[in-house]
């Protein structure tokens, strides 16, 4: 197990190295002078020179990269052009809402999607299965912000049950925290419930075709026990993998959902930074999100090997 863990850890190094190079090169990929791009349309030559100097753009490319990567490795993500605050501090301030939204979505998705997928597989071809799979196809087709606005329209404006927008930190109490989080979490969960329910259904269907399930059924094991004890655990392996893959999708969803519901998290910070062309912040955010993706997939790999020990070989 230690060997497996070490091997997986080492495998993340080249991936993060590529991410770092891509993030560094982003600024230099576009046409023209990057300092002019950041400065915007109304900049004076002095502004452009100041930005070029500040980002070290006068140095040769490899020197710029080595300086930058050295700072990143010591936890220094640079200084925001817009607010003059350290990027690491800006990101740290915005982590809580995004974590709350993501974890809430993960919990709601698993709690809803896994039982739905199992039920659909158990009665494959029946009305429940057809409705669920039809609903899943629809959930894939509607962008998250449209779902968000429909929810706001129905539950906040027409029924006045929940707040329209905004965020309350957990420190303000659990009830306002959850009330503000409810609609964004539900909106963001739609597509993931569709995804995970489909994968669970396919996976359970496959397991239900196995010989040992037939044996267990012949032995007189009850339906519920059969699904829970015999079918669910092997069926969860692909589900866990998909959760890892879905993380990249989740980041995109978080960015949009935070904009719809006016939540001051990392997603809003991303959009604001892009619109202000605050390049050091964009770089820092992409690095942090990518590292989180790689870390999530590391955890998924480990979970995977717990669920199915054959994978360690």
């Amino acid at each position, binding site marked *: 197990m230690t060997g497996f863990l070490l091997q997986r850890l080492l495998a993340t190094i080249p*991936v993060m190295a590529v991410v770092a190079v*891509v993030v560094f090169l982003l600024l230099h990929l576009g046409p023209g002078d990057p300092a002019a791009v950041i400065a915007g349309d109304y900049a004076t030559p002095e502004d452009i020179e100041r930005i070029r100097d500040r980002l070290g753009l006068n140095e040769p490319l490899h020197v710029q990269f080595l300086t930058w990567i050295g700072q990143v490795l010591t936890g220094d993500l640079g200084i925001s052009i817009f607010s003059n605050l350290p990027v690491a501090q800006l990101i740290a301030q915005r982590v809580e809402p995004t974590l709350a939204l993501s974890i809430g979505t993960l919990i709601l998705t698993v709690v809803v999607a896994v039982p739905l997928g199992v039920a659909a597989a158990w009665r494959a071809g029946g009305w429940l299965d057809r409705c669920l799979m039809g609903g899943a*196809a629809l959930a894939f087709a*509607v962008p998250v912000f449209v779902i968000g*606005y429909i929810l706001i329209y129905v539950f906040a404006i027409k029924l006045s049950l929940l707040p329209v927008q905004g965020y309350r930190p957990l420190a303000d109490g659990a009830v306002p925290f959850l009330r503000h989080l409810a609609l964004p979490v539900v909106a963001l969960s739609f597509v993931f419930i569709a995804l995970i329910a489909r994968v669970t259904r396919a996976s359970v269907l496959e397991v239900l075709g196995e010989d040992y399930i037939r044996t267990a059924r012949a032995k007189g094991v009850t339906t519920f026990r059969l699904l829970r004890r015999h079918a669910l655990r092997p069926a969860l392996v692909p589900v866990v993998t998909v959760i890892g893959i879905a993380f990249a999708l989740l*980041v995109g969803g978080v960015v949009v959902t935070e904009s719809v519901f006016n939540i001051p998290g990392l997603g809003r910070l991303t959009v604001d930074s892009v619109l202000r*062309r605050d390049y050091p912040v964009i770089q820092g*955010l*992409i690095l942090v999100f990518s590292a989180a993706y790689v870390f999530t997939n590391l955890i998924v790999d480990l979970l995977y090997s717990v669920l199915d020990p054959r994978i360690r070989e």
Partner: protein
Amino acid sequence: MNAIRRNRSVQIGMALLALVVVTAVLAPPIAGMDPLRMTPEDRLTSPVAAHPFGTDMFGRDILARTLHGGRISLSVGLMVAAVALAAGLGIGLVAGYVRGVDRIVMRVMDGIMAIPGILLAIALIALSGATLTTVVVAIAVPEVPRVVRLVRSVVLAVREEPYVEAAVAAGARLPRLLVRHVLPNTLAPLIVQGSYVCASAMIVESILGFLGAGMPPEVPSWGNVMAEGRTFFQIAPWILFFPGAFLAVTVLSVNLLGDGLRDTLDPRLRGRFQ
């Protein structure tokens, strides 16, 4: 071909898609109005006979904007699919055949996959300026690694086939080998993958437009029309809902088409896509 035509998903997908394409192509006669014409006296009208989908804050007709938006969103979807497939096919063929290149290329692809696609796209657009070309390329780049992986896996499987080994033994050169034997095998999975890329590209375009980081704001793409509806959402929800519904139907139809093609073109492909 008959199996494809008989497939339920393909039938429904084709019918819906044909409907959307017809309304997009025939946008001028159906809408009967210029999507850019402002009529300030009619601003924020709710759906009535003269404006079946209502108007926006400048009095522009939402029906006209939605139908013309279809032209843009469908083109973006198709172009992104073409660009991502072409790039992925080229890189994947080389990676699958040339061992030394394979390792490096796949590491780079792993790295790109680790960067959330929408972030990469908005960063690329922000730094190179929002035009049709940059939007298409920016949406296509994050899709490339998946296509490369798919093509590479087909190449690796095909090169073990006896008939390919026979061709090698008979002295077939690499380019001929790739074009004659490998390319036809990648076609079916690529068409399926292409339909999914097209569907997701239309969603991403709308998200980019919605965030204000997509097409130039004067272009009436579905994303941009919906973005303009944000501010007036509480008093004029139709600005957002009608383009949203068209987008949903379009994406649904392309996905259904993809599912149907996947199941009929090559049953072995089941489970290889999400």
